[in-house]
């Protein structure tokens, strides 16, 4: 089941969603912020936006704050959904 992060009002009414879907382009671990036909990928390891387009500045600060506040929950959900690509499996783990 896809995970949907509850967001504070009025963000949902304005069409904002934060999800981990069951089938994502799963490299690297991330949540997807959606609004209408735009989507931003926010990396759970580095806590940064993965893409320059669309512009991360268009995402309300309250959403990033909520993601960071719920980071443990999001990481647990990612690990449960993608056990083959866990958050803690960092680039250097195999050394």
């Amino acid at each position, binding site marked *: *089941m*896809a995970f949907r992060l509850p967001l504070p009002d009025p963000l949902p009414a304005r069409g904002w*969603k934060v*999800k981990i*879907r*069951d*089938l*994502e*382009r*799963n*490299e*690297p671990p991330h949540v*997807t912020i*959606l609004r*209408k*036909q735009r*989507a931003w990928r926010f990396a759970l390891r580095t806590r940064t936006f993965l*893409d*320059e*387009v669309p512009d991360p500045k268009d995402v309300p600060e309250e959403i990033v704050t909520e993601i960071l506040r719920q980071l443990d929950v999001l990481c647990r959900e990612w690990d*449960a*959904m*993608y*056990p*083959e*690509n866990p958050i803690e499996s960092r*680039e*250097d783990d*195999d*050394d």
Partner: protein
Amino acid sequence: MTEPLFLLGDARSSPFRRLGSDVLRSIDAVREAYARHGRARWIVLDADALGLLASAVHGHDRWHRLLLLERASTARRELLHALFRVVVAPDDGVSLLPPEELAEVMDDEGAEDRFIGGVVDADDRALVLYRGNLDRLVVPHAWFKARPKARPDFAAFAVTDYGQTVQLGDYEASADAILYDLDPDARRRMKEREIKRDASFGGALRRLRSARGIARSDFAPLSAKTVARIERGEVDEPHGDTLATIAKRLGVKPEQIKSY
């Protein structure tokens, strides 16, 4: 997207009024547009407009693609299938985005990388998805891997999130993930964006390995440490037996790895 988009029907009270496309109102205008453009997208809003289109178009150029928003008779559908390369229309089992989302996706420059709907072929275990450019993409049911907490339910298929999510009951798949794996052109567009971050062989290997859900330790006789070094570009780009081992484990040809 440079292809023209033509609209037929009364759009005044419809979400499609926002489209900046040409609204065609006469047989002559339809005929002229159909003949002049080698390929275009067409949206027909209502039965009157469908009648206009059916009576106006006579030709053999089948690169045009059509979105109908009203049901058509079997005979008329056959006619339209003869005149258009793709006909997307409401029918039993066909699921489309809500009109407001449909209009926004069709109007988006990235429409080809969004889905507007689809239909489940349960007998052949395939999902036919319609894209915003009105092309089709066929996805085998088996492609949607079950997750520890969710299994795809094809009886509950819908496209949501303005064409960015394929919903199969509680199971959701991103349009990007589907297109990245199944459409080389879409993958190229996404890769062009990612190349800005990491254009190396190692970067491509890392993306493909993660997409396949394969661990670095799964490339025997190569060690996980060796694979990690290749991904980080700390050693020369592999060739020969090493490259063949990597490609075989990933299920692609050696020369395809860098396209990921």
